């Protein structure tokens, strides 16, 4: 009974004390499709992703009711760092959904401004003023946002608090004229129209070279996967083998504070996720031990006898360093390889039916005949030319008889396609009943090859993975020169996932292979399942920028690069890499084989 009443009271008081207007809430997911474009148009760095911000404790005095209900301790504010723009996951500050939506766009415009001088108050006020002078259309929106915000703010009780609030209100109403916050004032109430006063330094946790675990690509992804926790790095505690005597009610505190001890339970509690959401910060520490050993297990290089067969000594390829804005010559070593244990094999039985269907479709696509006029002989007369010829004859000038026929020669499509498949370890993850990503990729390669062999276009199949810059493994599955036969099928069947995704080097090598093909149109098709990444600094922005450069180089060389991905978040970075029309996201990975072939047909038609 006490529980029941307690939870009922809790619900009631929380609802009464909740400061926002949930019925008018606007979610980040609602504005996300427009957010990147808007942010870039405002002058924001095009390399940045958009992520949802995590709530941080603001420490300001709350309303009485909110204190009773124990809510409103955290606030989600926007900020920007070198990797991403962080925006609140949802905004329900105003009773009017249009204002909440407007607030998103306001925050993006503000965050796109170059950082201003001064403290939190001054820099935000400065940025606001700059926004309003350069974008007069925003002024009306801003005035409405401020006018609706002021009644929602409460007056602090004490004097310094009031002075601070006065300064904030002044800065809100008259941007650009802010003075510094009065010294010694308590933490002011957060201002949702401004950027975060002290952004959590999420990047610090990313700066670690070396030991990055591969990204998880399970099916359980949801909006929380984008969430950034406020992280603190701690030096490892050197105690040998401590034990934690845990008092049940303190479990939150023992989570929060980093103590290197054996926890009393091995299993994760079911509501651990919720507990993590509640915490101010998650402590991340390097003890150099447990994770390293796990990585070692993942990455232990196979003995030479079990590894794929290397071909030659490898090739040195450049890599783009976006910080220095130049290509670093001979930075990666790319090792062409043949899959181990590949013996000639026929197409698996389960793919036979699909392959038959595709072959029929693509055979119909191939003999694309077009009329050619001005032939010396042919089945049809070229009327235009005959009329012109007769007119010239009548003019009395001697003209040699021109070719007056139309022919229908069998047109070669003059098309070469190189398919580059991502074989990194992330493709090992499972897709429910359909098996692993790698299986889907393998089937896609097989069916794709059947289709292309049927329509007669020249094609090559390659796979890649990488292990730091010294070993970019470039797996030769079917070369342009060789026919598509059981030997090639056997090599495709023998692919296995492994290692990381250093995409730039693989694209550069593919470009140079494709350039040797004598075809009018050359398509570079990349099948991927996630962002570029590798063990060293090749992740985040560095990897993305290098890949982008490699794609640009391919495009400059006259190739048509195109990316097909099963990564559902690819919309965040692929437009930057391949351009808006240069990629396609397959939301249901099981359909990759069908999508890939139909895409090829439409791309080349």
């Amino acid at each position, binding site marked *: 009974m006490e529980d029941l009443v307690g939870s009922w009271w809790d619900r009631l008081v929380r609802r009464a004390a909740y400061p926002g207007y949930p019925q008018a809430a606007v979610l980040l997911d609602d504005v996300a499709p427009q957010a*990147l474009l808007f942010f870039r*148009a*405002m002058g924001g760095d095009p390399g940045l992703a958009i992520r949802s911000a995590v709530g941080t404790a603001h420490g300001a005095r709350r309303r009485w009711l909110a204190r009773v209900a124990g809510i409103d301790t955290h606030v989600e504010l926007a900020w920007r760092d070198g990797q991403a723009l962080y925006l609140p996951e949802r905004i329900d500050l105003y009773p009017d959904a249009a204002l909440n939506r407007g607030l998103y766009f306001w925050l993006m*415009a503000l965050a796109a401004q170059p950082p201003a001088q001064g403290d939190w108050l001054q820099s935000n006020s400065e940025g606001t003023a700059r926004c309003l002078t350069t*974008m007069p259309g925003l002024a009306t929106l801003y005035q409405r946002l401020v006018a609706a915000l002021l009644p929602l703010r409460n007056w602090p009780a004490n004097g310094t608090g009031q002075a601070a609030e006065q300064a904030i209100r002044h800065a809100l109403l008259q941007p650009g004229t802010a003075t510094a916050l009065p010294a010694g004032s308590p933490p002011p109430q957060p201002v949702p129209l401004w950027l975060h006063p002290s952004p959590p330094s999420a990047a610090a946790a990313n700066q670690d070279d070396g030991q990055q675990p591969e990204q998880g690509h399970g099916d359980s992804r949801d909006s929380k996967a984008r969430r950034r926790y406020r992280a603190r790095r701690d030096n490892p505690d050197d105690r040998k083998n401590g034990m934690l005597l845990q008092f049940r009610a303190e479990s939150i505190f023992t989570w929060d504070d980093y103590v290197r001890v054996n926890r009393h339970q091995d299993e994760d509690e079911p509501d651990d996720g919720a507990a993590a959401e509640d915490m101010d910060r998650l402590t991340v520490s390097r003890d150099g031990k447990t994770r390293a050993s796990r990585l070692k297990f993942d990455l232990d290089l196979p003995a030479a006898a079990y590894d794929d067969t290397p071909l030659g000594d490898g090739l040195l390829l450049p890599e783009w360093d976006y910080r220095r804005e130049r290509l670093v010559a001979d930075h990666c070593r790319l090792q062409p390889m043949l899959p181990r244990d590949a013996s000639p094999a026929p197409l698996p039985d389960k793919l036979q039916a699909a392959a038959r269907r595709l072959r029929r479709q693509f055979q119909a696509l191939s003999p694309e005949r077009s009329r050619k006029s001005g032939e010396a002989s042919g089945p049809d007369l070229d009327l235009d030319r005959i009329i*012109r010829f007769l007119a*010239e004859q009548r003019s009395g*000038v001697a003209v040699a008889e021109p070719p007056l026929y139309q022919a229908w020669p069998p047109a070669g499509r003059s098309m070469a396609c190189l398919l580059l498949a991502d074989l990194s370890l992330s493709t090992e993850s499972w897709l429910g009943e359909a098996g692993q990503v790698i299986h889907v990729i393998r089937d896609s390669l097989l069916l794709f090859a059947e289709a292309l062999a049927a329509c007669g276009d020249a094609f090559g199949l390659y796979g890649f993975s990488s292990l730091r810059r010294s070993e970019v493994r470039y797996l030769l599955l079917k070369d342009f020169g060789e026919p598509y036969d059981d030997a090639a099928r056997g090599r495709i069947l023998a692919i296995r996932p492994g290692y990381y995704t250093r995409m730039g080097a693989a694209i550069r090598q593919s470009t140079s292979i494709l350039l040797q093909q004598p075809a*009018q149109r050359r398509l570079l098709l990349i099948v991927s399942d996630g962002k570029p990444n590798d063990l060293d600094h090749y992740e985040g922005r560095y990897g993305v920028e290098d890949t982008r450069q490699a794609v640009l180089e391919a495009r400059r060389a006259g190739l048509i690069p195109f990316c097909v991905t099963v990564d559902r978040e690819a919309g965040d970075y692929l437009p930057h890499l391949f351009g808006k*029309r240069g990629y396609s996201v397959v939301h249901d990975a099981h359909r990759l084989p069908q999508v890939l072939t139909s895409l090829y047909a439409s791309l080349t038609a």
Partner: protein
Amino acid sequence: MNAPHRAAAAAPLPFYQPLADECEVFEAAWRQQLPLLIKGPTGCGKTRFVAHMAARLGLPLFTVSCHDDLSAADLVGRHLIAAGDTQWCDGPLTRAVRAGGICYLDEVVEARKDTTVVLHPLTDDRRILPIERTGEQLAAPPGFMLVVSYNPGYQHVLKTLKPSTRQRFVALAFDFPPPAVELTVLREEGGADEALARRLVALATQLRRLGGYHLDEAVSTRLLVYAAKLIASGMAARTACRVALVEPLSDEPDTLAALMAVVDTQFGA
């Protein structure tokens, strides 16, 4: 050499706002009898520049918009049947050579590759135009000048200028004018007042950041002039921006919505 004689007062000089020394380059190339290649994005003022220079030098202008069915006969000329007789009819290139004027081939990459070869004897020091059909060989007078333009932004694998053709031209690269110049263009050409021109230029700067990422091509000066004209004629600014700047750039609903949000930062209600 014949000095540039001013155009008749009846035809006013088409407005053109020079960015740098392109007018001097054009005039020097004309004096030295060199052909000129102009490259630049859509709507940045290439055609206007040529019209301006032709009027300034007092030369007749023959413009050909190239397309992929343009044959050599379309340029040089052909026999036509008229009243039971055949007549030779000069094409624009031949007319330009005879008149000693400027022949301007717009978007020359659109023309078939074999078509551009007919330009070759005109673009080197021979400066002749052999007309095979009539057996005539025209020598270009000193006033004649060949100008071609193309847009290097098109990502078309098949449509590029052959190097052997490119290497015959003096080349000028055009781009969208810097804000200060574009401001003048909008005021002169679009009839916008100072404040409106400023906002439009700021909006263009914002939209041009999206070129290559979300938009195939950035918003052109021509579209800005359209928007300015519509607003000056009394249309609501937001509507004018939608029809002149946003809708021409994309078809995708999300992109359109985001572009309108960008427009609202300048012309918001």
